[in-house]
């Protein structure tokens, strides 16, 4: 069994934090189907699943002829009324036959794509991870995920004003089931915005892969966003008129969201521990947060000092 997915993570296009009721209304993308909300340890709301039908190639490595038919699920996740994630994923299985079946066959298997091919699942997983920009005949979970982002960002619950500038990130992931394996994760940073994650899991943990990757993508984006704030501050290229505004905005919006593994089943915690050892996610985050707080403190002292001198001159 194999699951492939792609997650986009970025800020909601809104000037401030969206209240909880607003988030629920924002994510009601399928009329009549409920938004799932958890409030602890941080508010996390998940839209109902949208299904997208596909019949196309799926990449393999080494290259083999394929035809992938079925449905892809996508949903949007909003964390604390601030961060928007759009997550598209499909369970990939090998088709029993060589021909496309009647549509009802696929409609009954929600979120599953059947692949007509000689390719092994591991070959598909490798091909998928190494094809970040598929051609227009090849399964494009990025486009499905991007479409959902655009649907959400256009909705009337948002004021469409930029509260803090940040770049969205993409995470492509695969999770493959191997019996009697200890869980393993490999995170690869391809570029400023693209990450690739490979998960190998015992079959009973496969169902937690999607949530784990969404959590990982959120935290990876937090580090990227804060890094971006620091870089802007260094270069004096801030959007905010007051240099402290950007740092304050970052502290207000981002810092409390750091809770690695909080939304992940305890069975997956060894994977987070592995990532904490290398690359040392929390180490990097804590150092960044400390830097930002130091800057705010130093500048506050500067201001206080300035005011004192000003008063002394009177």
């Amino acid at each position, binding site marked *: 069994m194999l699951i492939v997915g792609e997650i986009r993570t970025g800020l909601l296009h809104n000037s401030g934090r969206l209240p909880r009721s607003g988030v629920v209304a924002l994510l009601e993308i399928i009329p009549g*189907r409920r938004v799932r909300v958890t409030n602890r340890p941080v508010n996390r709301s998940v839209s109902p*699943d949208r299904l997208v039908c596909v019949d196309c190639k799926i990449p393999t490595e080494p290259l083999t002829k394929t035809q992938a038919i079925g449905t892809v699920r996508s949903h949007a996740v909003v964390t604390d009324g601030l961060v928007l994630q759009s997550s598209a994923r499909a369970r990939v299985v090998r088709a029993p036959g060589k021909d496309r079946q009647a549509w*009802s066959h696929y*409609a009954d298997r929600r979120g599953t794509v059947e692949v007509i091919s000689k390719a092994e699942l591991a070959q598909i997983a490798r091909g998928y991870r190494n094809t970040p920009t598929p051609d227009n005949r090849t399964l494009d979970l990025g486009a499905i995920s991007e479409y959902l982002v655009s649907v959400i960002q256009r909705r009337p619950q948002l004021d469409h004003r930029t509260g803090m500038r940040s770049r969205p990130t993409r995470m492509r992931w695969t999770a493959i089931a191997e019996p009697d394996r200890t869980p393993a994760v490999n995170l690869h940073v391809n570029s400023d915005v693209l990450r690739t994650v490979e998960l190998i899991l015992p079959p009973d943990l496969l*169902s937690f892969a999607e949530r784990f990757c969404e959590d990982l993508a959120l935290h990876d984006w937090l580090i990227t966003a804060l890094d971006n704030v620091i870089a802007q501050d260094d270069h004096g290229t801030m959007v905010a008129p007051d240099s402290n505004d950007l740092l304050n905005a970052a502290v207000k919006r981002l810092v409390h969201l750091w809770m690695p593994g909080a939304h992940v089943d305890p069975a997956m915690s060894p994977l987070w521990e592995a990532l904490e050892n290398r690359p040392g996610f929390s180490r990097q985050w804590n150092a960044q947060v400390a830097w930002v707080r130091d800057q705010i403190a130093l500048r506050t002292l500067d201001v206080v000092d300035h005011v004192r001198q000003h008063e002394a001159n009177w």
Partner: protein
Amino acid sequence: MSTPNSGYSEATEQDRPSNLPLSHLSIEVGHFYMEDLLNGEDRIRAQFRQVAPWVQAAMAATGQARPRVSTCFLVDDYFRDDTSPGKIVDKLTRIAAECGVEIDYLAREAGCAVTDRPDRDPVQLAEMVVAMLLPEPPAGTNGSRPPLHESGWLCNGERSPASDTQSGQAMQVKPWQPPMEFGGRNHSIFLDVELWKDLAEQVDGRLIRRRVWSCPLLASIWHLLRLGMLRYYADPVAVPQPPPPDGEWPDTWPQLPAVMRLNPDAAPFAAYRTLSVMPRSYLGIEHAVDVILNHIDLDQAVIDQVIERGRTENIAIPRRVTQRISHVFTDTTDPSPVPDADRG
């Protein structure tokens, strides 16, 4: 810890659908366009006479010792709502009774588009059902294009490619290619169904855009209501209400509930299976309904619930909703059928 399958499928555990009372069979006892109901009584009488023996036969054929069977009738008030409900209902029920047909439930077609709920906001049922459609992907659909059914059309195969006359390469005309039905047997029976039409109208000098749902879409919703398959945030929709007390019918159709229980002793409105007895002129619409219902992503929890309910009564319920629907098409005895152009 849950098993991988149940965990990944994200069963809507917070969305446990409410139970509906279910009959064994729901029989639709004929169908008329509003024009038929306005023009004389002969045509109405002729159809109910044809319907009556089928209703008796269907009731006898449930195979149940104590069958729960309800009858229903859908009034076309969506494409024409300028008639008086009191007069129409009176005429309809009187002639039906004369012919030995009892109408337990009377429903409004407009209620399949938007349905009212007591003390709550109305539900945009047609929008909800359109959002549940899964259009069949032609080969090459990789997820990068917007959903096909945003065009307002749904088909059971791959359309014939458009001929390329706009490109300035008129000399290189591609040969015509046929459309293809997916999963067709040897040859194709290709059907392309219009789900809605967007109209722009001038109202008080302002341009108003209005979406008009097609007859097959509303008929699909009608079948889903009769099969007890629709929920709005887990709540049932179009729950049957009593008719106005003391026969005080309002002047207009929208003032009435979507479904009314005319017979207080009727078996439940929704049922495991449905039968529609209607003139054969509706065959095209019902074919389109079949295409629509075969492409709909129903709430899996509702399907499971109905199957489970059937199991407790030793009745096997098919998972696929179209397998719970049957029809009898009667011949047209009327010498002057309504012209096609008048149909919804």
